[in-house]
């Protein structure tokens, strides 16, 4: 497992009860680097969500790595988004395809947020990143 993700999830894993877990997730969201407004284009908007969620996804050819940025108008989704970014940002496509976000969310007790029903866009984001990684591999 890559270490930026381990670093950010430590507090979630150690959280006592679901309230603390959500508190940690929202904290993560707060720490997410500001997404440049210029990147918040329609194309980056994840459709069909109750909350607004943007995911910018690019590929750095020199570094052979995924470049991700994102934002959301809700705290919880923004925190989950931060988790996703920590999981994938800066990885090579090869590394990214080896990551199973479902397993990680399962482990953190957050799997329900990845269900198709949530409509919070988290699942759509993971799918989008995985598709990009597959394509660039």
């Amino acid at each position, binding site marked *: 497992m890559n270490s930026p993700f381990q670093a950010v999830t430590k507090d979630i894993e150690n959280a006592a009860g*679901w*309230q603390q877990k*959500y*508190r940690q997730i*929202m904290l993560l969201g707060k720490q997410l680097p500001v997404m440049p407004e210029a990147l918040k284009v329609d194309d980056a908007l994840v459709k069909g969500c*109750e*909350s*607004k969620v943007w995911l910018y996804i690019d590929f750095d050819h020199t570094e052979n790595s995924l470049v991700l940025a994102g934002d959301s*108008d*809700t*705290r*919880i*989704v923004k925190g989950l988004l931060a988790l996703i970014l920590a999981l994938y940002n800066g990885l090579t496509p090869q590394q990214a395809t080896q990551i199973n976000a479902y397993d990680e969310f399962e482990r953190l007790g957050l799997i329900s947020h990845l269900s198709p029903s949530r409509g*919070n866009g988290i699942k759509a984001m993971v799918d989008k990143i995985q598709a990009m990684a597959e394509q660039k591999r």
Partner: protein
Amino acid sequence: MFDIAKIRADFPLLKQQINGQPLVYLDSAATSHKPQAVIDALTHFYSAENANVHRGRHTLSDNATRKYEQARKSLANYFQVESNELVWTKGATESINLIANGLTSKLKAGDKVAISAIEHHANIVPWQQLVKRIGAELIVLPITSDLVIDAQQCAEFIEQHKPKVVAITHASNTLGNITDLAPIIQACKNINAISVIDGAQAAMHLRPNLREIDCDFYVFSAHKMLGPTGLGGLYGRFELLNSLDAYQTGGEMIETVSLTQSNFREAPGKFEAGTPNIAGVIAFTEAIEYLTSLNFQQMRQHEHTVFSYAIKQLSAIDGITIYSQHHNNIGNISFNYKNEHPFDLATLLDGFGVAVRSGHHCTQPIMSQLSISGTVRASFALYNTKEDVDALITALKNSIELLD
């Protein structure tokens, strides 16, 4: 007396635990729970009575048909109308589509159709489609700044603009406000406009006497009236109803079919093509019987008590904005906390076992009007209690603490 403990015991779902805590269900505007009698009727039907209707020459089919038609009578009784003025559909949405489609040949280019700005999407989009199809015009009835359909103003507006059809809600799903229908329907009569009332939210809470309301059409969904999903219907004044263009076609709704031509039956059969939701209809009778077994005044009094208490308790929390009108409300409260996203609040409330809904509630025009993206909505039904309100308030305070 309204025996709330007994009533709660009739609804098995209220005993659920969510996230290790007792469920506090405040989402009845989305769908209501079902009394045991409704569930039992479904089980009994499929276990002992299952058959298709109107077709068989055998005992099971005869019995199913008799029960199916008996259900129509029960509902006619509930709404105080005639059985042949009631059409079964799959829900309020289909009912409005059926009416809007059925009015096609009664309208012509340039005619106006009026709706209000607080309608559910189901009472907006079908009318948009209708006016687009025939080159008619959609006009919007005036509402007050606190988002209430102003009956007097509406009546004047109607007499002035002379729409051919007026489609408004009896109560708003987002805000709960009850529309004062009488002046509006009188105005419709004065100018010969057809009145279509969206009763999806009101039908359970207000037990509307449709003869008295005297509208032309009234639509409802069974799943919001203690009944099963996949069922709804509409009332239509018989002659007008019968004169609507047919909607879906196929078996059951025809009198004769040849390869070149078909003749349709009279209403309501004309509008019930295909095998209906037989089990749903028969189980829904139990929901109607359940509702009518309760004393209406007592039920409304109970609902009002719980609602008022909720409004009072919510108002006492600093930073809460309530969008719903405080009086004359079926029991739906839309609110926000400061600038917090309703999604976050609802997610945290769920953690505490409190089920509310967040979002635009299929009423995007209201959200535009309020310049917000959504609200948290707590909606109450006859089985809710002051304790539910207390649980909501505690959970809300704890959630706010997590957010602050």
